[in-house]
C-alpha cells in the first residue's frame, strides 16, 4: 500500500491476501532469488547468446563448424586429435573431432542454434495449439470436449517415438528442421491442452465467469478476456518445461539418425558419432553430452522455480 486513502487509513493485508504480482520483472527477480535457478538461467542465457551470435562467435575463434583440420589430427594414431583431452588447445577450445578435425566448439555453438530453433518453435506451436484447443474443450464442453479429449487420448497413448521415426523416414527429405518441428508439435500439444482443459473447467465454474456473462460478455470474450489471463502462469510454466523435452527428443532423433544429419551440426548426432570413439577419445562424447544434460537440467530447474513462484501450493511439482 503506497498511496494512503484520503479519508480512511488503509487496512493492513495479511501475507496470504497480499497480491501475487505476475509481472515479468518480478518473476525474473523470483527466479534469480534461488541460486540454483539463477545459475541455470545464467547458463541458458550464455547458450542462447552463443546460439544467436554463432557466426560471430566462430569468426572470433577462427573455426567454422564444417571445415576439416587435418593439422590438428595425429595420423599415427589413426586420426585421433593431437594432444590430451581430445585436442583441447588455444586454437580449438573444446578440441576437434577425430578423423576429420572439425572444431567441436563451433559445432556445439551451431548445434545449440538448431536445438533452440527447433525446441522453441515446437514450444510456440504446441502452446498456441494446446491452449486454444484446451480452452475450447474445457469451456464449451459436451460433444466438442469429447472429440478433442478423445483425440488427445489417442495422441498421448500413441507410441510417439516409433511413429516419429516412421513418419520422418517416410516423408520426403525436404527440410529436416521443419519436419522435426511439425512432428514434435503434433505429439506435444495434448500435454499442454490436457492441463489447460482442466484449469479452464474449474475457472469456468468460478463466479467471475458468471459475472462476466451477467455483464453481457459473449462466450468468446469470456474465454479470451476473463479466463485466459488466469491461465498465464500455467502457460509460462508448461512452456518452460516443454522446451527441455523437445531438446531431448530432437537430440534423441538425431542420435538415431533421423533428426538432423551430418554435416549439419547437432548435439544428438555428435553423440552418435562419438560412440564408436568412446574408448580412444572420451572427450568427443563427454562435451556434447554435458551441454545437452546441462541445458535440459537448466530448463527444468528454471521451470520448477517458476511453477513454485506462480503457484506456491503446488510445492514445485
Amino acid at each position, binding site marked *: 500500500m503506497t498511496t494512503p486513502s484520503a479519508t480512511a487509513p488503509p487496512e493492513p493485508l495479511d501475507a496470504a491476501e497480499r497480491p501475487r504480482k505476475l509481472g515479468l520483472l518480478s518473476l525474473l527477480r523470483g527466479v534469480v532469488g534461488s541460486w540454483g535457478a539463477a545459475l541455470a538461467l545464467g547458463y541458458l542465457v550464455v547458450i542462447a547468446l552463443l546460439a544467436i551470435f554463432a557466426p560471430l562467435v566462430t569468426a572470433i575463434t577462427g573455426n567454422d563448424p564444417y571445415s576439416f583440420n587435418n593439422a590438428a589430427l595425429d595420423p599415427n594414431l589413426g586420426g585421433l586429435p593431437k594432444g590430451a583431452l581430445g585436442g583441447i588447445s588455444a586454437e580449438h577450445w573444446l578440441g576437434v573431432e577425430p578423423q576429420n578435425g572439425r572444431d567441436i566448439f563451433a559445432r556445439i555453438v551451431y548445434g545449440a542454434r538448431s536445438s533452440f530453433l527447433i525446441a522453441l518453435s515446437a514450444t510456440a506451436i504446441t502452446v498456441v495449439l494446446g491452449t486454444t484447443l484446451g480452452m475450447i474443450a474445457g469451456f464449451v464442453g459436451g460433444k466438442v470436449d469429447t472429440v478433442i479429449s478423445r483425440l488427445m487420448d489417442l495422441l498421448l497413448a500413441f507410441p510417439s517415438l516409433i511413429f516419429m521415426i516412421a513418419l520422418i523416414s517416410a516423408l520426403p527429405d525436404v527440410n529436416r528442421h521443419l519436419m522435426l518441428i511439425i512432428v514434435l508439435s503434433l505429439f506435444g500439444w495434448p500435454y499442454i491442452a490436457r492441463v489447460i482443459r482442466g484449469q479452464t473447467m474449474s475457472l469456468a465454474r468460478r463466479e467471475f465467469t458468471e459475472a462476466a456473462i*451477467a455483464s453481457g460478455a459473449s462466450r468468446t470474450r469470456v474465454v479470451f478476456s*476473463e479466463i485466459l489471463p488466469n491461465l498465464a502462469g500455467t502457460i509460462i510454466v508448461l512452456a518452460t518445461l516443454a522446451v527441455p523435452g523437445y531438446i531431448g527428443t530432437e537430440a534423441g532423433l538425431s542420435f538415431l539418425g533421423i533428426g538432423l544429419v551430418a554435416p549439419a551440426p547437432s548435439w544428438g548426432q555428435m553423440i552418435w558419432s562419438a560412440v564408436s570413439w568412446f574408448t580412444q577419445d572420451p572427450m568427443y562424447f563427454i562435451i556434447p553430452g554435458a551441454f545437452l544434460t546441462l541445458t535440459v537440467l537448466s530448463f527444468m530447474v528454471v521451470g520448477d522455480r517458476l511453477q513454485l513462484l506462480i503457484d506456491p501450493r503446488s510445492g514445485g511439482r
Partner: protein
Amino acid sequence: MSGNAPVLAGKNLTRRFSRRASFGRTETFTAVDDVSLELHSGETLALVGESGSGKSTTARMLAQLITPSDGTVELGGRQYAGRRLGEFRRQVQVVFQDPFSSLNPRHRVEQIISAPMRYLDLPKPAGGWTARVKELMERVGLNPDHSQRFPSQFSGGQAQRIGIARAIAVEPSVVICDEAVSALDVSVQARVLELLRELQQQDHYSYLFITHDLAVVREIAHRIAVMSQGKIVETGDRQQIFTNPQQEYTRTLLAAVPQIKYQRAAAAGQAAPETGRT
C-alpha cells in the same frame, strides 16, 4: 407499493435439474416449481428462504443466467432472448454473493468496473473509461485513486462495493443482489446496505434481494416473498410478514432467527468500523 406494471416479472418459472444416477437411470429434481414474481419500479423485493429452497435458482433465471425449464421472464412486459439478450442485460445487472470470487483476480478495478460498459458496447468516452470508472468508484464510496489495483488488495466490504459499481455502471433499472451481503461481517453488511439504499434513493433502482438473513430483509425490503422447497409460500409487505405472518412456514422461519443478531446489526448501524469511504 404502486400498482403499475412490473419492471421485471417471472411467470410460472420452473427449473428441473437432471443428473445421471447409477445404472444409466436419470434422476430429475425440481428446484423451482411454478414460481411467479413481480418486481415493481423503485422497490426492493426480498426473496427469502432457507438453503436449498430454490431462491438462488429463481434469481439466476430472472437474471437470464440459466434458462427456465418452463415459464418466462419479462422485462417491461417483453421477452428478451438470443440476440436481444444484450438489451436485457443493459437493464438487469447482478451483484454476486462472494465479493472476491465474483471479481476476476487478474483484472484491475478499472477493467472490472468498465466490463459491462465494454461488453455491452456502450460508446467509449473520448478519454477512455477512466473518468467514468472513477466517478462510479466515488459513488460507491471507494477511493478513485485505487482504480489500478487488483481485487485482492481490497477488503471484503470494499470488494463488494466494486461489484456494486460494476452493476450500476450501465445504469440498469433492476439490480439483482444474490446474497450480496451474506459473505460480509455484520458491521460491514450494514454499511453496504446503507449504500444500496442511498443509490436506490438517487437513481430509483429496483432491487431483487435474495437472502436467507432476515435481519438484512428487515433493513432493506419493501416487500417480501418467502420461498420453501421450490415454491413461493407467502408474499406480502415487510410489516405484514414480520408482524402478522399468515403461513406456518413463515412463522417457523421468523422464530428460527437468533434474537441477538438484531441487536448486533442495530448497534453496528451506528458505529461501523468498515474501512473505505462512505
